[in-house]
């Protein structure tokens, strides 16, 4: 009797699929439910941001960085502003630095909320996602009060921030933190502790520290693999060196494997707490003063190049900017966290099930516009 014949199936997952987090397509080759190969096909959201950057003046590129990662627009704004400030040698006033940290960390909370919520929703539990959105909505309200937008904030400027906080805003931020801090525990009770959820993730698709570094994983994905590296600590910028916070790393939470999907998830949950801590410190020590440095109206940085990395919610975002002394940059290369997270999926998903692929995508927190730029 001949052995049972099985076929390798080619499956098309996406570009419209509930769990691809944007428009991403995977060409799956599966043996039953087991994935033999998952080839990501990206580029559906390619808007040519690097080309646009060569066409618009330095300050006018700021709104485009919002669209780079719409869930963490301020972190992207900051990265661009910081690159140009380094390139042109601009000092940022301390109040603006504090405002940047407050907004960036609020934005980090908002972004991580979407990330952990979306992972839960990929696992089939939709309610945690909505609960995360419910809390994120309050952050959006704060941002709307501050800068008038709820998603594409365009808040940072080269040399500072665009607007000072309206009266009473800091108290409302504090109020939000007081509200939100216990909500992390409620969220944990709802989904993080859930046995099914833990079992779905804790041993799935572990990434070793070496593999994470070799594939260029950054941010929470890298820390999930146990590498204690955070640009805010190790290559500090802004006022981060003056602030106290910890860098959570994966450690095989709930008897899992180090670097598994659950570790990456837990790192994000822990980072929520750290962000709250950072914001509280900033609120306590924010000085009065200017929010904008003196920057020439038409900015022409001296000839030179810079590679500036900052820690966004999806990890290192780096702007490699070359200036020719013109009012537009000669070349901008944007390196984002999702790009490397996306590139590891093919290697990582081999041998896991389709349901695990969804967990892998969700736990790596890939977001399509950041991949495609």
């Amino acid at each position, binding site marked *: 009797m001949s052995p049972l014949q099985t076929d390798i*199936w080619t499956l098309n997952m996406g570009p419209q699929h509930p*769990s691809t987090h944007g428009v991403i397509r995977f060409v799956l080759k599966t043996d039953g439910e087991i994935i033999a190969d998952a080839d990501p096909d990206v580029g559906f959201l390619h808007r040519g941001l690097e080309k646009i950057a060569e066409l618009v003046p330095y300050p006018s590129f700021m709104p485009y960085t919002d669209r780079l990662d719409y869930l963490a627009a301020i972190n992207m704004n900051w990265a661009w502003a910081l690159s140009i400030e380094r390139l042109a040698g601009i000092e940022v006033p301390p109040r603006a630095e504090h405002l940047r940290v407050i907004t960036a960390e609020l934005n980090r909370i908002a972004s991580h909320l979407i990330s952990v919520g979306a992972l839960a929703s*990929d696992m*089939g539990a939709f309610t945690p996602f909505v609960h995360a959105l419910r809390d994120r909505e309050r952050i959006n309200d704060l941002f709307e009060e501050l800068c008038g937008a709820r998603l594409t904030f365009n808040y940072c400027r080269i040399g500072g921030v665009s607007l000072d906080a309206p009266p009473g805003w800091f108290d409302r931020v504090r109020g939000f933190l007081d509200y939100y801090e216990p909500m992390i525990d409620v969220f944990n009770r709802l989904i993080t502790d859930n046995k*099914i959820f833990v*079992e*779905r993730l804790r041993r799935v698709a572990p990434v070793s520290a070496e593999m994470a570094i070799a594939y260029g994983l950054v941010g929470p994905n890298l820390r999930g693999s146990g590498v204690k590296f955070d640009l805010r600590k190790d290559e500090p910028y802004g006022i981060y060196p003056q602030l106290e916070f910890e860098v959570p790393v994966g450690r095989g939470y709930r008897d899992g494997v180090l670097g598994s999907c659950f570790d990456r998830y837990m790192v994000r949950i822990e980072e929520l707490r750290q962000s709250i801590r950072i914001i509280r410190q900033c609120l306590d020590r924010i000085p009065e003063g200017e929010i904008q440095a003196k920057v020439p109206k038409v900015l022409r940085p001296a000839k030179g190049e810079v590679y500036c990395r900052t820690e966004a919610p999806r990890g290192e975002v780096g702007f490699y900017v070359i200036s020719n002394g013109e009012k537009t940059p000669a070349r901008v290369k944007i390196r984002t966290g999702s790009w490397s997270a996306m590139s590891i999926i093919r290697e990582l998903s081999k041998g896991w099930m*389709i349901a695990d692929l969804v967990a892998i995508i969700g736990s790596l927190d890939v977001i399509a516009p950041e991949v495609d730029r």
Partner: protein
Amino acid sequence: MKELLDQLIALAVEKVPLLGQAPDWVFYLLWMLVAGAALLVYASLIAGITSWVERRIAGRMQARIGPNRVGPRGFFQWIADGLKSLFKEDVTPANADKPLFRLAPYLVFTGMFGAWAVLPYSARLYAADLNVGILYVMAITSLVVIGILMGGWASGNKWGLFGALRSSAQIVSYEVPAGLAIATAVALSGSLSLQEMVRAQAGPLGILGWNIFKSPFALVAFFVYFIAAVAEGNRTPFDLPEAESELVAGYNTEYSGMRFVFFFFAEWANLFLIGAVSTTLFLGGWQGPLANPDTWWGVMIGAGWFFLKACFFVFVLIWIRWTLPRLRVDQLMAMCWKYLVPIAFVCLIGTMLWMSVFGDRAFFGLVAVGP
């Protein structure tokens, strides 16, 4: 209901002598049509309203409002949705196996709806009291898996086939713990007829005689049955066949319009069915305070109890669905074979031992059953 109908028929025969000469099958046919129509209306109402209730509850659990546009608090949303689906184009994919593709929703629907015929809505309120009632329920609901497999395979969509295969593996596996748990209830009640099973659960206050109170093992068996029933009904956390975030929509990916409604009708009708069968087997069916099979108002109160209990289960099912994530295929199987089956088996043996020690005494053997 049957008795009432018998009386009606007798009356009709008396008034119209010509009817007396009609053969029996005419009356049976009439009875079938009447009962079938009544049940269909009832089931449609329940399924439709459940769909609205589910969306409202889900909304509230997610800090939303839920549908609230059509009618008071959106109550007529389900009618609007039904009508909308009715007018929608019924798309059949080009490479679908067309006859099977068209047939599948009806099979699912039949399997789900067929079980409603034997449910003991109250002491005298039922369409049929088969002496193998519970076996009939298990048998007819097995049709569902064929419908799902057929639909998933015939739609010519790989995601659909994934869903269908997952579904068949799941339903076939979970029949085992469900069967064992049902056997526990059958052992306690001493009958396969659903009416008899409910009658056997009479006890003080109408509550203490319930099967779950007869032995601690029965209590566990009840949970095992409930979990297995949820799994057989493809509800979260066992909704792998349609696993939205993995398989797009699983077996019903390619369905649209009215056929899609049939699938969903079956799903919501199934919610009530799970509740009704669990109630009948373990929670005393229509038994409850003031329920009395001998007076008409007692029967009505019994019907109320049955409905309330079943609705409670519907709520719990919805509640679970909007809380829990989904299992993975291998975990699903592991849970069935490693946990539910052994536990159900222990429950069955334990209940038998318990009965041999305490007899048929209620409340874990503390209270004597009987008038």
